[in-house]
């Protein structure tokens, strides 16, 4: 977006007439791209376009005999004043901020640990991925039982350790709901963050550290001056992945809270509106709004990445 203003009169004159070979290669390139583009159009552009179109209609499931009508911006006007949607955005953003920051810090620590040399490192790297390998719905169900106030093992442990005196309903009590659902997401997704960062760590050349050792830099200095700057691309990719994932969180909330009003994320609200209430048109408008909110985060990240990229 920032490149719109760059004046660039030069390049056009400098470009040579393309040779026959170049043109043929371009053509082959396009031919090879067509299948991929067709798939993208079919699985991404078509559904997106359809969703945008539906968001301007009053389409309903079970509308019976009523025909679907074009309603212009009505859905968006309602959405703008919809307190339930605003609340769901707030819940989702809070969840995203909490989980992404914890996952990043913990993931970085784990990545640094398993990147160092110690016995059983290979085993450790495999074991750490276990939470990530369990399907979210299954993991959420297990945690729901473990956090139960009557027969949950978490309360039992905390009481035996005398940390709490009475069992606590971690999921049901609104005061701890968001914390418990965030904890489960952090437990599950930190390994993924660690894995991405580990990949980033492994491409940092070892001789940089050797040189730093020779120059007498402390481990902490090495971390701040070598590791962190060189890890920046991996960090940004990780943060983008996690933020986008967290913003469209559905499954763990759905298992934990079902249709509870105060814990609806954007995706839960959209699903409820479309699937349960049958308001396809309004639900499409919510989906488009979610799409725009997520795009906003992408733009912020990409801009940030470009800015920092230019520095180097």
């Amino acid at each position, binding site marked *: 977006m920032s490149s719109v203003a760059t004046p660039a009169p030069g390049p056009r004159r400098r470009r040579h007439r393309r040779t026959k070979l170049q043109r043929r290669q371009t053509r082959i390139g396009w031919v090879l791209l067509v299948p991929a583009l067709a798939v993208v159009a079919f699985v991404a552009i078509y559904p997106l376009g359809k969703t945008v179109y539906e968001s301007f209609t009053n389409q309903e*499931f*079970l509308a*019976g005999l009523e025909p679907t009508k074009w309603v212009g911006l009505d859905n968006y006007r309602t959405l703008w004043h919809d307190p339930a949607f605003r609340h769901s955005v707030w819940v989702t953003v809070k969840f995203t901020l909490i989980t992404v920051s914890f996952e990043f810090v913990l993931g970085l620590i784990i990545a640094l640990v398993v990147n160092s040399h110690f016995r059983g490192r290979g085993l450790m790297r495999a074991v750490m991925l276990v939470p990530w390998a369990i399907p979210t719905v299954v993991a959420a169900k297990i945690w729901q039982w473990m956090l139960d106030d*009557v027969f949950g093992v978490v309360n039992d442990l905390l009481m035996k350790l005398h940390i709490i005196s009475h069992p606590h309903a971690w999921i*049901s009590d609104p005061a701890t709901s968001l914390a418990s659902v965030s904890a489960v997401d952090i437990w599950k997704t930190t390994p993924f963050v660690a894995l991405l960062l580990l990949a980033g760590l492994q491409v940092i050349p070892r001789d940089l550290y050797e040189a730093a050792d020779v120059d007498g830099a402390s481990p902490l200095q090495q971390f701040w001056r070598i590791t962190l700057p060189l890890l920046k691309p991996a960090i940004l990719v990780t943060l983008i992945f996690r933020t986008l994932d967290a913003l469209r969180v559905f*499954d763990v909330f759905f298992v934990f809270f079902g249709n509870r009003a105060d814990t609806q994320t954007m995706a839960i609200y959209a699903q409820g509106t*479309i*699937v349960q209430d049958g308001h396809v048109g309004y639900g499409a408008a919510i*989906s488009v709004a979610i799409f725009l909110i997520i795009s906003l985060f992408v733009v912020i990240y990409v801009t940030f990445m470009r800015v920092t990229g230019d520095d180097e």
Partner: protein
Amino acid sequence: MLGLIGAVALIASLAATVGNARPTVAKKSNAIAAPKVPNAAAIKKKYGGQKITFVGDSVGDGNKRDTALAKRFSRDTGIKVSVVPHPAASDQSYAQLVRAFSQKSSSIDVAMIDVVWPGAFAPYLVNLKPKLGKQAKLHAQGIIQNDTIGGKLVAMPWFGDYGILYYRTDLLKKYGYKAPPKTWADLFKMAKKIQDGEQKTNPNFAGFVFQGNAYEGLTCNALEWVASAGGGHFVDGGKASINNAKAATILDAMRNQVGKTTPRGVTSYQEDQTEHAFDAGDAAFARNWPYQYGIGAGATSKVKGKFSVTTLPHGASGGPVGTVGGWQLAVSKYSKHKDAAIEFVRYMTSPAVEKFDALTNSNVPTILSVAKDKAVRAKNPYLKPAIASVPRVTRPAKFFKTHYNEASKIIYQGVNQILNGTPAKSVLPSMQSKLNTLLKQK
């Protein structure tokens, strides 16, 4: 995006169903064999070899029963029936059918539908009157009327339901009570005393359990509380009535019990959690549907012979009531094997099967002669007139028609919010206005 969300929801609801399923334990009381199919040879000749899909029960031992009956039906008639349990929360199950019907899907042939759904689904269901009209005369006429939309019989009654109170006879005696509670205030008092005593040896013990999760079951529970306290039926005379002092009083009274005489987590309980708590011996009182009776009296129960049932308590001004529940079987208009599907419904809603269901699963028969049957009465004490004749209250489905699911969501989300700690007076006004807005959308 829509498709993706739908797919995730489906997987999540499937997993939720699996999660709620009870462990399958062979039971002695289930030794009664599934009844044979009358007229099987004639059916086999006409429709043998066809395949149908039945979206059936998932609560309690419902899936076990469905599978046993479907197996017997397949063996006798040659019609293959694959049984798919629906999501345990009935609003999720409604959503599943909405998706199938709106996509004109032929993947469902027979579906079990809640007593409040025939109005919404009528355009998508086969008129059963021509083929099953005669059998329909055996069933309670009130339910047949409920299932008849615009002169068409769109569903056949399968089993009935009403909310009842389960209580521990041994504990009542132990703590000096001669009779179960008449009012909610009595119940709370008794629950407190029993809980205080029992928790000394069993820290997991709770006085009272019910369905407090934000789902359809809470709408049923809350209707009983409010109606039994003289607070109306959520919608009365076509207008929302939930915002009244009597409703607020009883809802706040319930809120004050959460975490005191109920587990704090009761606000996430559905039927299965309620039944598990009571049948594990961890509760003095439970509100549930009659199906729990059979499981409680079964071999795996810890409270076998130690509990009984009665009508639900009532508020200061009001009388005991029970929310009308119950399930019907319907045939989808988009089914490719409608006739075979109708034969399956004929079998499943026959007197022999209803008797089998009442004896093995303690479900309420909708056929009067079965309900009067001596063996059935003996096994299902909630059928005795003192309990069965209590006024039945109906969820406001007829006012909302195809918007009922949304209306119920407004109700159960609001009540769940109250139970989770928000005073009724700051929730009820917005519930009332939301319901009124919805009533205007026709």
